[in-house]
């Protein structure tokens, strides 16, 4: 039933109830035209300031302005185009959350709350680490890729995967690939997701290890999150169930106390010996923690830690944004460094194309989001028209986080940046050798001295900052500069360790949740093989849960230990593998979306998912190709493998970064594993892509498998689409409130009579 009021159409599914959908076709108002014109102009000025300024220091505020203006225009116009031409939301149809509401995983959730959930689930350490590492090529390529990549690739992927999943009861990526593209592509996608997840967990754990090793203050504050989470879990279980906000506030206060007292603990003799752990010991601690989190009940450890990390994530990011706007720091990094051209930078090897686009995955285009956009979020969505806010808007927010991370790395003294981020094999681990090394890099600005490097470490309450690779310490130093605005320089050690804690908390949240998810994927996959393995389908079978957890932890744990002990520096060999893996997952997701768009017959708009897909394939397959076939041992895993093998056969005991025979063997083994993984990833993705092409061609010839969409069910509830409701939406909400209130009253009356 439709009724029109000017440009606005109201749709009812029940004549006795208020409308469930509003279609607003009003043309754009002059006032809005002016506002968006001004935003576009301001954005253009900001971009010009960033791109054209030469010789003087750019103010970091321009990064923020350019990004926000671009996001606003993209959200209003490009996302709207995608909505009108591809998504075509039907608010008169019920979403999976409404149809299957079951009080656990399917629940229609307020769009603002869901936005927070979705953002907390997609944004982790990725957008903080990648942009920091990419700073070795200068700030300009990073800023452009983060903003443009998000607008045309990342957000499009997140939005459209959400769309595909919402029309299929919130099915997961692997299931949808199988349904739409056949069992071979489906199986490859599921295996790819699993292997990629193992790499993700290993690399994130490696980032934490690099940030915490030999830092008793950092280790103490992170270690304290475990007893705090246990306390929160017990509080929610036995004392006051359901008081989530209350217990989270208590937890955050305790956490801040832990960060403050960490300084004192680190200076006691027992604190220094208990918490000053070597990278290998620390890795074992994280491996044990990951296993424990996977087998313990979620209420005890995982859920309360998740509350803490969500709160910290949102709070700190807002704080950082305010800090940048207030402190307005000057950018120290060049727009484009000479490493962008030569491709010989120490942080990661390889040329700008493809490796910059690999290094910054999260924040621009992150395949992992497709696992959130399918699976969890669609089961909580109230209205189809809210997908633009959740899917596209959520990713824009993550892109903004990446811009802030990039800003913090850009405002650091560039010599210091390379002292922190070059592998130990180059810097030599003493202040004098590190100063010597970075002064030879040909950076602009006055050369660094050993005293400055030691002082920089003291300023943040650490013993050393040399070769603290992985991005987290760099970000923490940048953040301590920005947040030092609140309360002066004396608080910098606090803010540094606060930032380390903040990153480590949500990396560990990804590690514990990811281990658990991977364990379920593994037991699911194995149970499909049949025979006695079918017993794995029961998640409460302890032996199955323990052995699957053990396999998962062993898989990422061994890659983690490999990275920690890698003579070449683990981050610079493993991070590209992680970026490639992440974006190959995006290729799978975008292939699925493109196939669905073709099947729906929206061929004129196929370019919307196809352009990011082809770009992503060009980037990831070029990078994979170079990692596998490049003859340059700095770039190619196999070239390095053969180089070290030859050195070993020639009887050498010292070769390149390897200081002894043991290290030469380690390099030979590590490059073999990394090279093999590169091949596996690329082959799996090519299988899925070719599967997509075959299905697409069959559909275009008029055949092929049908769409697996659910048949629509009429909706019986209403909710606004955007963050701020329109006038018409407010009016309809009022009508619904009136109806629900009168029902509640009549029910209360009948309950009352029954009692008499």
């Amino acid at each position: 039933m439709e009724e029109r009021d000017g440009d606005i159409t109201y749709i009812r599914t029940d004549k006795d109830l208020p409308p469930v959908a509003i279609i607003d076709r009003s043309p754009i108002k002059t006032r809005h035209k002016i506002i968006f014109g001004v935003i576009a102009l301001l954005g253009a000025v900001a971009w010009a300031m960033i791109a054209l300024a030469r010789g003087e220091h750019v103010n970091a505020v321009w990064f923020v302005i350019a990004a926000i203006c671009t996001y606003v225009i993209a959200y209003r116009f490009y996302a709207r185009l995608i909505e009108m031409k591809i998504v075509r939301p039907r608010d008169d149809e019920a979403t999976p959350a409404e149809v299957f509401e079951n009080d656990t995983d399917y629940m229609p959730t307020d769009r603002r709350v869901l936005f927070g959930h979705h953002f907390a689930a997609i944004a982790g350490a990725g957008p903080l680490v990648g942009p920091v590492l990419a700073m070795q090529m200068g700030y300009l390529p990073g800023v452009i890729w983060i903003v443009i990549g998000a607008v045309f690739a990342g957000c499009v992927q997140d939005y459209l995967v959400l769309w595909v999943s919402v029309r299929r009861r919130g099915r997961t990526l692997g299931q949808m690939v199988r349904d739409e593209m056949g069992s071979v592509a489906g199986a490859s996608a599921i295996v790819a997701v699993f292997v990629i997840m193992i790499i993700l967990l290993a690399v994130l754990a490696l980032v934490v290890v690099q940030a915490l090793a030999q830092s008793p203050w950092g280790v103490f504050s992170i270690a304290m999150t475990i007893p705090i989470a246990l306390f929160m879990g017990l509080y929610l279980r036995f004392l006051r169930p359901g008081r989530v906000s209350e217990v989270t506030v208590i937890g955050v206060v305790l956490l801040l106390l832990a960060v403050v007292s960490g300084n004192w603990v680190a200076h006691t003799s027992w604190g220094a010996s208990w918490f000053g752990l070597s990278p290998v010991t620390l890795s074992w601690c994280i491996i044990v923690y990951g296993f424990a989190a996977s087998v313990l009940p979620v209420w005890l450890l995982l859920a309360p830690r998740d509350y803490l990390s969500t709160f910290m994530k949102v709070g700190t990011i807002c704080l950082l944004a305010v800090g940048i706007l207030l402190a307005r720091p000057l950018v120290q990094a060049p727009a484009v460094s000479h490493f962008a051209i030569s491709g010989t930078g120490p942080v990661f090897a390889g040329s700008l194309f493809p490796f910059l686009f690999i290094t910054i995955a999260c924040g621009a285009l992150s395949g992992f989001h497709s696992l959130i956009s399918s699976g969890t979020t669609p089961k909580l969505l109230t209205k189809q028209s809210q997908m633009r806010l959740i899917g596209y808007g959520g990713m824009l927010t993550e892109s903004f986080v990446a811009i802030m991370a990039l800003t913090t790395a850009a405002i650091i003294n560039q010599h210091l940046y390379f002292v922190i981020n070059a592998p130990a094999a180059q810097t030599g681990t003493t202040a004098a050798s590190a100063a010597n090394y970075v002064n030879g890099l040909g950076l602009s600005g006055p050369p660094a001295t050993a005293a400055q490097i030691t002082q920089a470490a003291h300023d943040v309450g650490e013993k050393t900052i040399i070769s603290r690779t992985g991005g987290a310490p760099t970000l923490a130093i940048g953040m301590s500069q920005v947040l030092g605005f609140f309360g002066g320089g004396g608080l910098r050690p606090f803010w540094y360790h606060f930032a380390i804690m903040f990153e480590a908390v949500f990396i560990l949240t990804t590690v514990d949740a990811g281990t658990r998810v991977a364990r379920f994927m593994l037991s699911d996959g194995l149970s499909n093989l049949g025979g006695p393995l079918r017993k794995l389908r029961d998640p409460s079978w302890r032996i199955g849960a323990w052995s699957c957890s053990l396999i998962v932890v062993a898989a990422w744990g061994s890659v983690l230990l490999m990275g920690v002990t890698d003579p070449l520096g683990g981050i610079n060999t493993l991070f590209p593998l992680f970026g490639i893996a992440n974006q190959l997952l995006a290729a799978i997701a975008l292939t699925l979306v493109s196939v669905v768009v073709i099947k729906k017959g929206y061929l004129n708009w196929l370019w919307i998912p196809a352009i990011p897909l082809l770009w992503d394939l060009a980037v990831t397959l070029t990078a994979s190709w170079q990692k596998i076939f490049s003859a340059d041992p700095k770039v190619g895993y196999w070239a390095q493998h053969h180089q070290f093998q030859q050195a070993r056969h020639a009887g050498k005991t010292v070769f390149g970064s390897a200081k002894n025979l043991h290290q030469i063997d380690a390099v030979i083994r590590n490059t073999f594993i990394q090279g093999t993984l590169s091949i596996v990833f690329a082959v799996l993705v090519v299988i899925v892509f070719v599967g997509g092409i075959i299905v697409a061609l069959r559909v275009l010839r008029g055949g092929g498998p049908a769409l697996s969409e659910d048949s629509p069910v009429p909706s019986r509830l209403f909710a606004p689409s955007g963050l701020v409701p329109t006038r018409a939406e407010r009016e309809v909400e009022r009508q619904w409130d009136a109806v629900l209130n009168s029902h509640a009253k009549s029910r209360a009356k009948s309950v009352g009579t029954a009692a008499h």
Partner: protein
Amino acid sequence: MGDSHYQRYVEHRRRAHPGEPVLSEREYWKMRYAAADSRPGMRCC
């Protein structure tokens, strides 16, 4: 962050399954966490 979940659950039970028993808040959260035990939510990078 979940504070209103129980209230929503009670309303949903009344609306969708009138007359059937409603869990206490403690039981409700036990049920929620038990469900989360077997269907873990993914966290991204």
